[in-house]
């Protein structure tokens, strides 16, 4: 039984035929669309390395069947920068040394982008830590991650204010 799945990934429409319904969204991104920035860590929803935004919301792409996301809009780490201009969260991760080995970083950044968009954490470091508890960093770069998210959030809030003014 083959399934046709249409997805918009980082603004680009894709039509994929799946011969096997077991393909997860994560595997479709990595193996079929060659977007290997999204990482496979635990593959069980426990580490957050596979975090992407689907229709603007962060989810674990390892626990999602690709077929279930027919018609959805997906944003991965590859779609975050505008040409050579990095996204403010990416800039802040570099500025605050918010990584060591870097394996978890795409998931951390996509989760942080989702967290800031959700708007529930504000500038409270404790709410940011709680809101990012689904992303594990084995190197323990958490202190820098929280600083980066705080700074990126402030930058994005100021940008929004300028746009509104």
């Amino acid at each position, binding site marked *: 039984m083959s399934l046709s799945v249409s997805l918009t990934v980082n603004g680009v429409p894709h039509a994929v035929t799946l011969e096997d319904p*077991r393909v997860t969204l994560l595997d479709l991104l990595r193996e079929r669309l060659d977007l290997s920035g999204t990482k496979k860590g635990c593959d069980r929803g426990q580490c957050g390395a596979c975090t992407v935004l689907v229709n603007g919301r962060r989810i674990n792409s390892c626990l999602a069947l690709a077929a279930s996301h027919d018609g959805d809009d997906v944003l991965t780490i590859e779609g975050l920068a505008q040409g050579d201009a990095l996204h403010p969260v990416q800039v802040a991760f570099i500025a605050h040394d918010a990584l060591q080995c870097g394996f978890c970083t795409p998931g951390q950044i996509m989760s942080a982008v*989702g967290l800031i968009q959700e708007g529930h954490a504000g*500038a409270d470091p404790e709410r940011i830590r709680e809101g990012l508890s689904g992303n594990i960093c084995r190197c323990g770069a958490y202190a820098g991650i929280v600083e980066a998210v705080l700074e990126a959030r402030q930058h994005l809030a100021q940008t929004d204010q300028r746009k509104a003014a």
Partner: protein
Amino acid sequence: MNRFDYVRPASVPDAIAAAATPGATYLAAGTNLLDLMKGGVTRPSRLVDITRLPGLDRIEHLPGGAVRIGALVRNADLAYDPDFARAYPAVAEALLSGASAQLRNAATVGGNLLQRTRCPYFYDVASACNKRQPDTGCDARHGDNRLHAVIGWSQSCIATHPSDFCVPLVALDAVVEVEGPDGRRDIPLDAFHRLPGDTPQHENALQPGELVVAVRLPANADSFAAHARYLKIRERTSYAFALVSAAACLRIEHGVIREARLALGGVAAKPWRARPAEAILAGATPGATVFRNAAEAALTDARPSGDNAFKIELANRVIVRALAVAAAGTPEHITALPASLFSANSGAFHDA
């Protein structure tokens, strides 16, 4: 993961017809089901994807004061719905204390009710487990069982139900609306999940092919809003299942508890409603003595199922603490660490 047929029906009747095939299972977000399938714990022959069914993703305020939550409402959307969180703060707090933000964005109301135990022997297909494979034994009985049940367990199974959401729901007399081959019916949540007995493989009251379509809270469930808390003790600060949790909901008038609701999580194969404790609390003035008496009454039938006698004492203290924080009043905003006592600050300066 085994191979399966994938179908995505467009209506509830089509979904129920598609699920009539033996071996078929409903798929919503899949945050638990896909994990179980990857481990070979469950091996459905057909997945009936219900995520596109119309009309199941709404929060409806019904005439008379009840609220009806569609089975496909995402956990995060329910917890952050301002009207819902104001009326049922313990439910919102429980939701936000569960899983991670990514999982709460995906996981559904119906899926939360139907998630399976996290007993490691249930997950490990090399272990004996009466729930996964009836009449094969229970390796948890003499295994690593400090997290297992202390109420309502049997020689066949000592697993717990992992949901946070279900704990305040059962305290508030939630009703599960299901639809199946024989039509629609209501099941009180307290009768939805089953204790293991000799048949731990039968975890709930659903008949084959029945689909959870909604959860309903009755009209009086918002009368506890001023004194409603969920308290959850875990082995790390966040993103962990409960060791023990409690939902405490009080209706206090002129300094007297007029009505009390109390339920426990992490202690049994179902969210555990503690009615004997509620009877003690009704009519009492809030205070440490009556809270301790209520905790004793709630745990009269608690027995260790292994290396977990500490959970009974822990449950006792969690109940007393949950009642105390509920009596003190629902905070204006959900704290930075929902359901935790370990927030560095109240978190009240930002609106959650």
